[in-house]
C-alpha cells in the first residue's frame, strides 16, 4: 500500500517529531526518552496523574489524548507494539505530583508485561501506581472471561472518565475505581472491511474478499470471530449491537454514551449512517443517549471499518463524560 513516509524504520520517530512541533503549547518530549511525551501544562501538585500508552498506528490514540481533562503523559510504542518499560517509567516520574499515577492501557499481553515491569520500577522509586486495563471488546472472549478481553475503542471512555476524575481531584484509588467502573460498563464490537498494512512490511494485515467483512475484528487487524457477507449499514450495525446487548446489563430508561469509531479510512458519512441506526435501535429499547461521539478515535492506520461502543452512565459518570477536555486531537467544551 502507498504511504507518505520517509525511511520506514523512522515512521514513529518522525511522527512524534512532527507532533511535538505542531503542538508545542500542548505537548513536550522528555529528554530522557524520545518515546516519552508529557503535557506541556503540568498538573498541580497533589493531583493524581494519568498515564496512557500503547502501540503507534492508532492515532489519535494514544498520543493525541494528552492534555487537560485526559492524560498527563503517554508512552509511545512501535507500530502495534506496546512501548517498553523505559519510556513508561520516565513519563511516570515526570508526571507524578505526589498523588500517584494511574496507568490506563488495553488488555494485550505485551502491554500487560511492559506496563507491569514499569510499575514495579516506579514503585522502587516510591511512586504509587494503579493499573487499569481496558477490556471492552465483546468479540474477544466469552462473557465469563471478561478480563481476558482486549481493549478497543471503549478505551476512549476509560481515559475520558478517569481523566475527568483526576482533574476534579479524586484520589488515586478513586480515579482507578472510576476507570474500572467505566471499563465494566463499556462494551464494543468492531467490523473490518479492508485491511491496513504495516509500513515495514507493506503487506495487508488480513485477507478478505470483495464482498466480505470481518465481524469482531481487533484494532490491529487481528481476525475477528467470523467472516460474513458485507451487508447494509443498518444490518451490520445490528450485528454489532446484538452481542453488545446480549453481554450487557442494560434496560429501558438507562442512559449511555455512544461512540461510533472509524478504523481509519471509513468516511464520516458512513459512521453517521451507522450512528443513525444505533440511535434507532436504542430509542426503540427506551435507552437514552446522553452523549455521542462519531469519528476516528482509535484507528488502525488506514484500515476500513468501524466499531460501536456503548458505555452505561450513572450520575457520576455523566458528570465526568461532560467534563471539558483540551488535547491536540480531541477537544470538548
Amino acid at each position, binding site marked *: 500500500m502507498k504511504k507518505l513516509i520517509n525511511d520506514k*524504520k523512522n515512521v514513529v520517530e518522525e511522527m512524534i517529531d512532527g507532533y511535538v512541533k505542531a503542538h508545542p503549547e500542548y505537548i513536550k518530549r522528555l529528554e530522557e526518552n524520545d518515546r516519552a511525551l508529557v503535557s506541556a501544562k503540568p498538573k498541580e501538585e497533589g493531583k493524581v496523574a494519568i498515564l496512557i500508552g500503547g*502501540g503507534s498506528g492508532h492515532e489519535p490514540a494514544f498520543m493525541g489524548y494528552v492534555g487537560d481533562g485526559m492524560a498527563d503523559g503517554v508512552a509511545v*510504542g*512501535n*507500530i*502495534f*507494539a*506496546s*512501548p*517498553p*518499560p*523505559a519510556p513508561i517509567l520516565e513519563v511516570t516520574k515526570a508526571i507524578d505530583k505526589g498523588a500517584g499515577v494511574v496507568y490506563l492501557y488495553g488488555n*494485550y*499481553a*505485551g502491554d500487560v*508485561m*511492559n506496563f507491569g*515491569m514499569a510499575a514495579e520500577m516506579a514503585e522502587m522509586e516510591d511512586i504509587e501506581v494503579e493499573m487499569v486495563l481496558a477490556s471492552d*471488546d465483546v*468479540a*474477544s*472472549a466469552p462473557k465469563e472471561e471478561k478480563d*481476558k*478481553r*482486549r481493549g478497543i475503542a471503549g478505551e476512549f471512555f476509560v481515559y475520558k472518565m478517569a481523566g475527568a476524575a483526576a482533574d476534579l481531584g479524586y484520589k488515586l484509588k478513586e480515579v482507578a475505581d472510576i476507570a474500572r467502573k467505566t471499563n465494566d460498563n463499556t462494551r464494543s464490537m468492531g467490523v473490518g472491511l479492508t485491511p491496513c498494512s*504495516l509500513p*515495514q*512490511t507493506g*503487506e495487508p*494485515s*488480513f485477507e478478505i474478499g470483495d464482498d466480505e467483512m470481518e465481524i469482531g475484528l*481487533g484494532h*490491529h*487487524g*487481528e*481476525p475477528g*470471530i467470523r467472516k460474513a457477507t458485507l451487508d447494509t449499514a443498518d444490518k451490520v450495525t445490528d450485528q454489532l449491537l446484538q452481542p453488545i446487548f446480549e453481554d450487557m446489563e442494560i434496560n429501558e430508561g438507562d442512559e449511555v454514551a455512544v461512540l461510533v469509531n472509524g478504523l481509519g479510512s471509513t468516511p464520516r458519512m458512513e459512521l453517521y449512517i451507522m450512528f443513525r441506526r444505533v440511535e434507532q435501535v436504542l430509542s426503540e429499547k427506551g435507552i437514552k443517549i446522553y452523549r455521542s461521539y462519531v469519528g476516528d478515535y482509535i484507528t488502525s492506520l488506514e484500515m476500513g471499518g468501524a466499531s460501536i461502543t456503548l458505555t452505561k452512565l450513572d450520575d457520576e459518570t455523566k458528570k465526568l463524560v461532560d467534563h471539558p477536555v483540551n488535547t491536540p486531537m480531541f477537544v470538548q467544551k
Partner: protein
Amino acid sequence: MNITAKELINYFKEVVDIVEKEKDYLCDLDRKLGDGDHGVTMSIGWQAVNEQLNGKLAEESDCGKISSTVGMTFLNAVGSSVGPLYATGFMRGGKAVKGKSELNDVDLAAYWIAFINGVQERGNAKVGDKTMMDTLIPALEALVVNFDREFIPAFESAVEAGEIGMKSTTDLVSKIGRSSRLGERSKGAQDPGATSAHMILKAFLDFAKVHA
C-alpha cells in the same frame, strides 16, 4: 567446550542475520494469528542489539554483561510481547553467568535454563497455550534430563524437543496473547513466537557445534 565473550557476541550477530532473513516469514505467521508484526519487531530489536554488539559491547569481556545488555537493548527497542519475554530470558541468562569471560559446558546449561525459566516467569504461559513456551519448555526439560557434563548433546536434544514443540503449535487452539481471541480459528497456523524461539535455540546449537 568453551565459549568466549567474543564468541558469544558472534553468536548474537548470527541471530541478527537469521532474524533479518526470516523476518518476512515471521510476519506471515503473525498475520495469520495476530497483528502481523512479529518479524518486524524481531528485526527492530535485533538491529538495535547489533548496534550494541558493534559498539559498546565490542570489547566487553563479561558474558553476563553482554547477555543482559542484549536483553535490555532488545526490550527498549521493541516493547511488544516478545520484548519483555526475550529480554527477561537474556537478562536472567546473563545473571547466571555474571562476571565470566568464558562459558564452559556447565555455564552454558545454566545459561539456557535461566533463560527459559525467565521467559516462563515473565509470561506465565504453559505448554499447550500456543506460545513460544511450546518450544521452550520441552527444550528446557530435554536439556535438564540429558545434561551430563557435556553441553552439546544435551542441547541437541533440547533443540529437537523444541522443534517438535514448535510444530505442535500448528494444531493448538491459542489460550494466551493476541491469538487467543481467535478461538478455534487459531488452529492451522504455527505460532510465530514458538518459531522465533526455535530459531534462537537452533542458532546456538549450530554455533556451539562449530566452536566446539
